[in-house]
């Protein structure tokens, strides 16, 4: 029979005390959230509840998101395979993983930045990698 030793019991008590103190600090930080943040949370909650009413405005344009996402991912594939100086480079395994993530429908924000990446690619890059 392995009875918990005195040190084990003491250790558990200290764990509990630590967790309790951490919870107090966390709750304090929750209480200190500013009004603007609380307002945004409330707005987000109301928007979520619209889903239940079936009133969420899913516009027709949303149907095009997967198509534009795939198109953007193809663009990135071409850019990555061409290399920074227009030289063809072999597709690395890591790049395939990147593309998988890019194709994820949750990665729209990333795709929105493609215009910026395209601009960077279009800009002249000197040998130090600085945009010229």
């Amino acid at each position, binding site marked *: 029979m392995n009875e918990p030793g005195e040190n084990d019991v003491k250790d558990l008590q*200290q*764990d509990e005390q*630590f*967790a309790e*103190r*951490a*919870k*107090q*600090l*966390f709750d*304090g*930080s*929750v209480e*200190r*959230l*500013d009004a603007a*943040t*609380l307002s*945004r*949370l409330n707005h*987000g*909650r109301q*928007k*979520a*509840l619209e*889903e*239940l*009413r079936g009133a969420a405005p899913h516009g027709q344009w949303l149907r095009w998101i997967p198509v534009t996402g795939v198109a953007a991912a193809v663009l*990135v594939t071409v850019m*990555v395979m061409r290399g*920074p100086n227009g030289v063809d480079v072999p597709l690395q395994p*890591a790049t395939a993983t*990147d593309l998988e*993530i*890019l194709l*994820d429908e*949750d*990665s729209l*924000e*990333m795709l929105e*930045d493609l215009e910026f*990446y395209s601009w*960077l*690619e279009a800009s002249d*890059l000197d040998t*130090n*990698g*600085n*945009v010229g």
Partner: protein
Amino acid sequence: MSAAVAVFAVSCIREPSTGAETLQRERQLNQFLAEVERRALRIAEIGIRDRDEALDLVQDAMIKLVRNYGKRAEEEWAPLFYRILQNGIRDWHRRQKVRNRVMVWFSRSASSDEGYDAVAQAPDPAGRAPDEELVNSEAMQGLEIALQALPARQREAFMLRTFEGLDVAATAVAMGCSEGSVKTHYSRAIHALRNKLGEHRQ
């Protein structure tokens, strides 16, 4: 004929009750989300170190919960909500990694921006907290930095168990792992935190 009348009668009776059920469900969901949203925001904020992004993640989790699990039993909502949120946090980190890789690929000079200074990036509590709360605020800041230094799974286990008060089973659902793993992650987390903060937190 009488059967058709009976069906019509039943449908007439059930129609308003369905609307009432929806209203009741909406009230319950509103109450649940109102109770959980502030803590969820802080948990997400500690996980990704950015309030605006954390707000987006919490809103996204609320929408997904209502859309996909709104009709599930009320007691299932907390673990499901936190599972969605934790997945969102993990996806966010994955996207950040890809974003950084792409940025580095396009511009090697971007390496100077790498490396996160947790102390420099931590929120300044002095700007908002009253004087009497300054000590607690600074202690929380230290706790956040220590939490951010933990491996992600340990951080998740500690925050869900301690901050949100989920039991081991609910935490396992939220983290998508076994109860044994939750216990291991939690134990390692609390010992690491105690070692780092134990002397300074009192």
